[in-house]
């Protein structure tokens, strides 16, 4: 399976994602420059973390006009798998490929720590191998990660089973204290209507290598491979 990792000016987790896919997952990975409109036959596109275009205007707001995003939109519209991590999630909501918005953390501080994520649905190519009773230990590192959407949108996401992950405590409860940034309903990741696009603020690629302590993030990448193989 071939992963394409988009590189925007200011991306800084592109190499982490390439490393996780090649070394920890054992699949093919290529970097795709933001000026390119050619996705090089990739089976899944990863929009990595970082500060694309310096987060000017709003995080992800300028990246959405990159040539590569036209290709990513067409790819997603035709059912292609797209995963946005952190800044990649911000780019996806700014591109309207996912609903809602990501605003400044409730406490205004940049938050860099390990969190626990409860898998909210197994019905997606990104979560199929996860276990809802076993929260994933994955780091976050963001200043603008507070997920916001109006109540009607949040209700719709719940009704359509499109919440991928929630921040939880050690007991697996989505408490206020476990919410690192003030996200609505403790939401850490959401799915598109077609379930082929996912965005999440935490960094699964940073929890993929044994040296990093947790390898829980690898489950998300393995889910992608398993769903892809099953669909063929």
């Amino acid at each position, binding site marked *: 399976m071939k992963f394409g990792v988009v590189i925007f000016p200011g991306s800084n987790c592109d190499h982490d994602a390439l490393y996780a896919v090649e070394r920890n997952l054992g699949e093919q990975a290529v970097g795709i420059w933001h000026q390119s409109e050619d996705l090089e036959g990739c089976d899944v596109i990863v929009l990595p973390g970082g500060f694309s275009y310096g987060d000017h205007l709003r995080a992800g*707001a300028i990246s959405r006009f990159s040539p590569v995003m036209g290709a990513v939109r067409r790819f997603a519209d035709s059912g292609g798998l797209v995963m946005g991590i952190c800044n990649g999630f911000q780019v996806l909501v*700014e591109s309207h490929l996912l*609903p809602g918005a990501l*605003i400044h*953390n409730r406490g*205004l501080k940049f938050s860099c720590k390990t969190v626990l994520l409860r898998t909210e649905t197994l019905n997606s190519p990104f979560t199929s191998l996860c276990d809802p009773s076993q929260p994933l230990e994955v780091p976050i590192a963001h200043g603008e990660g507070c997920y*916001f959407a109006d109540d009607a949108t949040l209700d719709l996401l719940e009704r359509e089973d499109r919440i991928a992950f929630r921040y939880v405590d050690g007991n697996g409860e989505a408490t206020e204290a476990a919410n690192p940034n*003030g996200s609505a309903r403790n939401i850490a990741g959401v799915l598109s209507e077609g379930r082929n696009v996912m965005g999440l603020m935490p960094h699964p690629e940073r929890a993929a290598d044994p040296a990093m302590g947790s390898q829980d993030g690898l489950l998300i990448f393995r889910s992608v491979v398993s769903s892809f193989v099953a669909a063929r």
Partner: protein
Amino acid sequence: MRAVVHVTLKKTVLDPQGRTIRSALNNFGYTRVQDVRQGKFFEIEFEQGTDATEAEAEAQKFAHDVLANPVIEEFTVEFQE
């Protein structure tokens, strides 16, 4: 011709920066300050001879599509000669 665009967070969206500024003002002794909402301000120059109606339409469109994110923000557009 110059367009002046103000972008602010919708009333329904938490504004942690505004809240922090309010606390700072209160702490500085401005105890009558009850609420602060902060936002962004853009001055946009159009080239000479641009048709006013076209500029107005264009500014409304790019304010909506680019300068503001309508999911969380609202905006106003005004023109100065």
